[in-house]
């Protein structure tokens, strides 16, 4: 556990990992060198494709066999060369001397074994403790990661736990044998901000108490600001800059680091958010949505996803709805565009109530309210060209084809793509480009209201900034009323004029961004803001 003085727990020298021959570039990771000392948290930061996860997997020898292969350099764990270690030695080090926590708590646990069994397995695998002691230890570990009712929870299956609880189980598993090195690959990315804050706190507490070395992989500079001792910035497989946290955050040397930091939206709202007095484009009154389950033999449980929500979005204004997963914000959006029918309440589109209209009567209104979805990789039909995607909507509403095509070309120019994009398929574009296409698709129908459901949460921070700029630009240009659904308070602060905070299906607070962020009234808004990572440092 305690490293010899002066020797890092993990030393990576000139690490090179080859990609398969037909890949875009030759190496996933090239000439990467850095150390992680005992008792230190080193954050490995970079955008998707930077090679940060590959580096982490290479350390544990978990690279997908047959696809990626370490071709050069050295990885030393407490002085032992891991590249030279035989498979059996590597296996015995895994879990005991080095452990890993993964990004997706939903899929990282075996669904058919109880969580207790899975943590116990760490001891079994390494032949430690008697069965009774193992049971004891697991309960202790669950207590140390602040899982409620550990005695009961050891016998539950992963699907019976929340995402945050599952990640705590993962942490308990990783720290079970007090490894010298813990590698955490985006461990909080899939979690809500308040859950994230608690998980980070737990990790840091245990790490400090045991003096473990932690290699923490993240794309989120807020998280970096909160927990890192040192930072290593990666880009396309290479380290561009490394140093102590404050040096990197306050005085970044490399232009790429500077660009990344500048792209992080600030929590301070823009100054010019004057109250808008234009006409209401979309108004939701007392909207509720209840989901009922059950079948022939069973009485189902009912879920009130949205409860008595009222809001107004004016022409040329952006209203951000912020909240954690399960708060009902997406259901609200889906009711507003009538992808689902609200249980009660009104949805007024320029004064007309569309909440309960039948399909036929609804048709003329569909055009006027359009939506941009979260995942640009899945919201475009992979077998249809961009032109087909952009032309379909207007043609459905009677626009002659040549005119629709001309409009599609204009819109592609507007969102920053050339005419040549028309004949191509979605898979030929990057995530950011696809989201631009989705925005163009929504605009092709010339809507009055644009609903954006987490439109940038699947994108890298630098791309995210560009798409947010684009959305602000089109809103102004077309005087759109925009309802912007997000879990990210920084994004909300950047794009919104007003903000509504949602919790458990209800809007708990609403007002101009500067007021809500500067002086939150409701306890939930305060908790949410306090949990935002990197607060005060970025």
């Amino acid at each position, binding site marked *: 556990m305690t490293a010899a003085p002066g020797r890092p727990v993990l030393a990576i020298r000139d690490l090179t990992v080859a990609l398969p021959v037909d890949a875009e570039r030759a190496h996933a990771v090239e000439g990467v060198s850095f150390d992680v000392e005992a008792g230190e948290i080193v954050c490995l930061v970079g955008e998707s494709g930077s090679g940060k996860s590959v580096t982490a997997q290479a350390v544990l020898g978990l690279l997908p066999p047959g696809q990626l292969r370490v071709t050069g350099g050295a990885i030393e764990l407490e002085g032992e060369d891991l590249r030279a270690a035989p498979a059996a030695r590597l296996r015995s080090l895994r879990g005991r001397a080095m452990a890993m926590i*993964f990004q997706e708590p939903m899929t990282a646990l075996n669904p058919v074994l109880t969580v207790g069994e899975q943590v116990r397995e760490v001891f079994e695998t390494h032949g430690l403790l008697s069965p009774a002691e193992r049971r004891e230890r697991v309960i202790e570990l669950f207590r140390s990661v602040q899982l409620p009712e550990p005695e009961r929870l050891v016998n539950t299956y992963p699907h019976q736990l929340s995402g945050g609880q599952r990640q705590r189980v993962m942490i308990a598993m990783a720290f079970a044998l007090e490894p010298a090195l813990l590698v955490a690959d985006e461990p909080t990315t899939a979690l809500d901000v308040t859950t994230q804050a608690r998980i980070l706190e737990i990790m840091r507490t245990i790490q400090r108490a045991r003096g473990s070395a932690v290699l923490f992989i993240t794309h989120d500079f807020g998280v970096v600001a909160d927990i890192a001792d040192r930072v290593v910035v990666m880009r396309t497989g290479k380290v561009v800059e490394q140093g102590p946290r404050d040096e990197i955050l306050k005085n970044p040397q490399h232009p790429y680091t500077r660009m990344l930091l500048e792209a992080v939206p600030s929590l301070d709202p823009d100054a010019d958010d004057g109250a808008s007095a234009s006409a209401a484009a979309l108004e939701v009154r007392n909207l509720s949505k209840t989901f009922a389950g059950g079948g022939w033999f069973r009485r189902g449980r009912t879920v009130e996803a949205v409860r008595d929500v009222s809001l107004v979005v004016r022409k040329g204004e952006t209203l951000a709805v912020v909240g954690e997963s399960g708060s009902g914000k997406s259901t609200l959006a889906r009711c507003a565009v009538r992808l689902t029918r609200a249980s009660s309440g009104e949805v007024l589109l320029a004064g007309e109530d569309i909440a309960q209209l039948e399909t036929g009567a609804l048709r003329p209104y569909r055009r006027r309210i359009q939506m941009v979805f979260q995942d640009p990789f899945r919201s475009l039909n992979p077998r249809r060209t961009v032109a087909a995607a952009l032309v379909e909507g207007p043609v459905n509403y009677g626009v002659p084809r040549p005119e629709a095509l001309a409009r599609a070309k204009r819109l592609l120019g507007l969102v920053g793509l050339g005419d040549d994009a028309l004949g191509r398929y979605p898979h030929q574009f990057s995530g950011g480009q696809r989201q631009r296409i989705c925005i163009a698709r929504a605009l092709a129908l010339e809507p009055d209201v644009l609903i954006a459901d987490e439109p940038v949460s699947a994108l890298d921070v630098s791309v995210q900034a560009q798409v947010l700029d684009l959305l602000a630009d089109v809103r102004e240009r077309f005087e759109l009323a925009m309802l912007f659904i997000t879990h990210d308070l920084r994004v909300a602060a950047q794009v919104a004029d007003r903000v509504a905070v949602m919790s458990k299906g209800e809007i708990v607070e609403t007002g101009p961004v500067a007021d809500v962020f500067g002086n939150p009234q409701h306890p939930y808004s305060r908790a949410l803001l306090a949990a935002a990572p990197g607060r005060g440092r970025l």
Partner: protein
Amino acid sequence: MTGFLLQRLLATIPVMAVVAVVVFLLLHLGPGDPAAVIAGDYATPEDIERIRDRLGLNEPLHVQFLTWIGQVLTGDLGISIFSNLPVAQLIAQRVEPTLALSLGTLLVTVVVAVPLGVAAAWRAGAWLDRCLMGGAALAFAVPVFVIGYILIYVFAIKLGWLPVQGYRPLADGAGPFLRHLVLPVVALSFVFIALIARVTRASVLEVLGEDYIRTARAKGVTTFRLLRRHALRPALVPVVTVIGIAFALLVGGVVVTESVFNIPGLGRLTVDSVLRRDYPVIQGLILVFSAAYVITNLVVDLLYSVLDPRIRG
């Protein structure tokens, strides 16, 4: 769990009721007079009248149905027209050979096919996988009677280790019973081993790509344990589905194997009865097969919930 079981049991009642109605109507759905059809081409009008009388065909349809369903529910499946023996007795005699053959085949299949499938998935794309899957394709392609005759030629005629044909009931002792069962079971297993090995391979291969496999590796779990506990267990649901289908197929239709090895099972009774237009026996067999399917499905459903806690709900 008991609630789930009860619910599933209740759900089998309407299924069996529909089957019963269809089986009853079987006799009346064909063109012409059922009695004349049963009696055959050379029957005298008196023969036909006798059959009609014996089957109660002169009664109104609903009375006939109620009488019939009442008999069925008390275990009386009627009298065979061909042999004049009770249908229930005819079927009961044939159940043991068929069950012995089916269960034996299933046992051999699962014991061989599942490890092979896991091994193929673990070494997907490598020579082991290719050999196994090539062998599976071959086992699919060769008809069971060819395999049967080859086995008889080699192990019964040339080597003389095992009997050529026939069946000995378990009551005659376990030794003769098993010796007579080995060759038919092995012959019949080939195609099912191929099928289940393929399904196991596909299912395990999919699970091996899951995140929790990586988690298990990060714990330092050995390969054997990884495959058995983390890959095979979650992969079993589709495998059990196919095993259930295989069992239902085995109970209902192993005519060729029964013929090659001269085993007096349900498959041969079915074929003989159809050829003799022995309607009461056919009706009884359909009821028995349907019940076997329904029970197999029930067992498979229950196994799902044992194997996957998420299905328990």
